[in-house]
């Protein structure tokens, strides 16, 4: 199918071919699902909402609920205020969530609906909350949307109600799987640190099978916790793109000290995460985690020759790709093509959220790897790069499978969305445990390939 991708690279300005990103509202929807008893609401026409639910359903294989303002031609001419007011009334009457998290779509953004004013004028039942985020999809990407909704949580809910800050940390995990969120929480528990993680989709999109359908499953950050985030001593934002903005907002609003670090993927980033916690809270690394780290290093030494010098192409969401690139370098691999679809600007027009190209470029330079790095790229371009300089391994979301097949490259699925495999959302890639899992995935992909390609006389029992 991608056979028609020509090798010769020409400048393009007209649009995107085979996108490596999607639009803001889906990120906002995912973030909102991480609030306990929250119904995400899409303020726009039905199609967007339906697509976003469908895509999330495919990735998580769990029911994804969200309501829509169901715009018609009338609403797009006269504004969607009336639709939203009706929607708010209906949502609480029919589904009775604790929180309704409204995000906009391109349509409601373009016609300029003023959400704060509409929400203020709406009938909201006692004790219930409506929050909102502006998520025009012609800016940024799904990561920006996630970031904006988390910021919305801070805007509406975080309150500094105490004189002195509590000995607790806010963790903003970024656009990662519930399996990752569970792992981060486990680490914090083992460290004995009080924390509030938000959003937290574990228990919502990976809820257990009980034979009963719960529209609002047990998981998610509670309203009380979200309010209490303003009383925490520090916020650790994992990943500058998805989590940084909210951490800074929390500083502005409630004077909670922000700390932006990498998503803890790989040994170095996991170390940094633990060090940050150690520094902020006078705790030692518990033996359990020290042991895990030791095991990870043991595996890395056992297998390093599998990885050394192998060329890799990697694409996906910026926070994940940045951390993963670092991990690849620590294995002696050469990430020579590194790409994200998310641009460096998003949120409000021109607002810079991170610096993917510089950050990755710096890492490659230090490791002495000559590679191409691009933000706001697409998979057509990545494919062209690979054609010009082939790799031994491709890492990315499901859409990478076309390139992997066309160029016959071993492929490891990582990131969002993964639509053609199951279980991934339950198992972590973060922390030392996650790094072990990544090592297993990468080395299996490479060794399966070696076995498959081996001539009879080269086929070996031990590798």
């Amino acid at each position, binding site marked *: 199918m991608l056979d028609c991708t020509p090798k010769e690279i020409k400048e393009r300005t007209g649009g995107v071919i085979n996108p490596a990103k999607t639009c803001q509202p889906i990120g906002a929807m995912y973030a909102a699902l991480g609030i306990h008893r929250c119904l995400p609401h899409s303020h726009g026409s039905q199609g967007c909402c339906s697509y976003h639910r469908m895509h999330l359903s495919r990735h998580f294989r769990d029911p994804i609920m969200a309501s829509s303002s169901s715009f018609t031609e009338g609403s797009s001419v006269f504004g969607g205020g009336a639709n939203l007011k009706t929607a708010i009334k209906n949502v609480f009457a029919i589904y009775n969530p604790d929180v309704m998290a409204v995000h906009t779509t391109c349509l409601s953004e373009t016609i300029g609906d003023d959400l704060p004013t509409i929400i203020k004028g709406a009938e909201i039942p006692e004790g219930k909350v409506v929050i909102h985020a502006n998520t025009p999809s*012609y800016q940024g990407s799904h990561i920006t949307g996630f970031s904006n909704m988390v910021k919305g949580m801070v805007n509406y809910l975080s309150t500094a109600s105490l004189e002195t800050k509590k000995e607790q940390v806010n963790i903003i995990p970024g656009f990662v799987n519930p399996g990752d969120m569970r792992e981060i929480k486990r680490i914090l528990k083992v460290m004995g640190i009080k924390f509030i993680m938000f959003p937290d989709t574990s228990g919502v999109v990976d809820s257990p099978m009980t034979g009963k359908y719960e529209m609002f499953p047990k998981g998610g950050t509670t309203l009380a916790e979200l309010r209490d985030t303003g009383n925490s001593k520090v916020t650790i934002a994992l990943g500058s793109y998805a989590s940084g903005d909210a951490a800074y907002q929390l500083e502005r609003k409630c004077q909670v000290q922000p700390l932006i670090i990498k998503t803890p993927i790989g040994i170095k980033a996991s170390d940094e995460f633990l060090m940050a916690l150690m520094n902020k809270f006078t705790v030692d690394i518990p033996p359990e985690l020290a042991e895990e780290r030791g095991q990870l290093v043991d595996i890395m030494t056992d297998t390093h020759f599998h990885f050394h010098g192998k060329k890799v192409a990697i694409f996906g969401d910026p926070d994940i790709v940045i951390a993963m690139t670092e991990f690849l370098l620590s294995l002696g691999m050469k990430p020579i093509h590194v790409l994200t679809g998310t641009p460096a600007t998003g949120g409000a027009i021109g607002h810079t959220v991170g610096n993917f190209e510089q950050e990755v470029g710096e890492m490659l330079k230090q490791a002495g790897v000559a590679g191409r790095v691009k933000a706001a790229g697409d998979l057509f371009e990545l494919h062209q790069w690979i054609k010009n300089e082939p790799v031994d391994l491709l890492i990315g979301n499901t859409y990478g499978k076309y390139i992997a097949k066309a160029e016959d490259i071993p492929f490891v699925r990582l990131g969002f969305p993964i639509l053609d495999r199951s279980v991934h959302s339950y198992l972590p890639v973060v922390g030392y445990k996650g790094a072990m899992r990544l090592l297993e995935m990468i080395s299996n992909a490479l060794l399966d390939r070696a076995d498959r390609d081996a001539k009879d006389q080269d086929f070996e029992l031990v590798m």
Partner: protein
Amino acid sequence: MQKPILWEDIILDRAASIATKGKQKNKIRCDTDSVAGAVSQRACVYCGARVVLNPVTDAIHLVHGPIGCASYTWDIRGSLSSGAELYRNSFSTDLKEQDVIFGGEKRLARAIDELVKKHPAKVVFVYSTCIVGVIGDDLEAVCKAAASRHNIEVIPVQSSGFIGNKAAGYRAACDALLRLIKPNKPMKRTKKPVINYLGDFNLAGELWIIEDYLKQMGVTVNVAFTGDSSYQRLKKTTSAALNIIQCAGSMMYLAQQLKEQYGIPYFNVSFLGLQDTSDSLRKIAAYFQDEQMQARAEALIKRETERIMPELAWYREKLKGKKAAIYVGGGFKAISLIKQFKEIGIDVVMIGTQTGRREEYETINELVNEGTVILDDASPSELEKFMTEKGTHLLVGGVKERPLAYKLGIAFIDHSHDRKHPLSGFVGAVNLAKEVYATLCSPVWNYL
């Protein structure tokens, strides 16, 4: 204490869209807008247009809008191709804020130019999304100019999401197809048994199965709409002697237009299930009034039926008395499924669609047993309520319904784009039974 969900509230607002088959005849409300704030399973105009046109394999499908609309529709249709694969790529103008402020026409023109240079396609479909409708880009003009620049066809598809629902998108797609079909000079219609097959999208290769049956009878498929179709084949549309329509929801309008403009007669068929497949093959043979063809059809039906009967009987034995709920996109599929389930001994206790038409709901009402719940544009909560109440064992639906069924401990089969086996024809009848059996009788349910 949380207030329990008030079913009465839902029913009150939506009462007219839900009916129970009983003594007096019910008229169900359909074809209306969803309630604001409802969790609806419905999609949009663009979605409808895209699913219909996407299987045109050698076209450039360019989505004019922000990235999302193109991202979500990238290769999710599951329509197979015997040749070109261009349609499986995702092309978007990826509109940015400047375009929203200053208009997106220039960017669109550039995108077409760049794409056409890379991919030598004869036709480009340009889909408008919501935002394009609002900022008022003149799609028609941009496409016209691009068409003459490159000397190919560049066809705008008016599919802004908010101008209606999925059904409006079907219509927009048919309009685009009609523009493509229009011959430069009138084509002569053949007298030979050459037909167009409307409303099959070649999911899991279904078209090829039907094409093969027809070939055995001596009927040639001129072009299918739109499964495995190409520019060249679509161009020959008007030479066919007859149109047969499978998915009426999406294709009835096209069939009517082809009759009006080019005099091609049409009728409905269905290749889902043993009975429908046999009836449809007979109907086609009868139309051509060719005794030999009729004999060949009978032979084919007899041979295939005898071949699959033992297998079907085995499944029927295992599945007898199980209760199914159906929630699918269109009415045609719903109707076929009721009949198909009868063939394997399964009772339908709940049935609904996203975009069923009045006539279709009437047929459904005639076909189902007393007490069956019929509903239009249902929410997941309603699906849950009625499935639980009715003691349903199996749900037939699409992507969004699957996890819902599983969470309730109910078996599930996909009758939408994610299916991996053909469900058409005699082979399909067995595949359906096999799939139903695999999920209904899986040992996993014992661990609940």
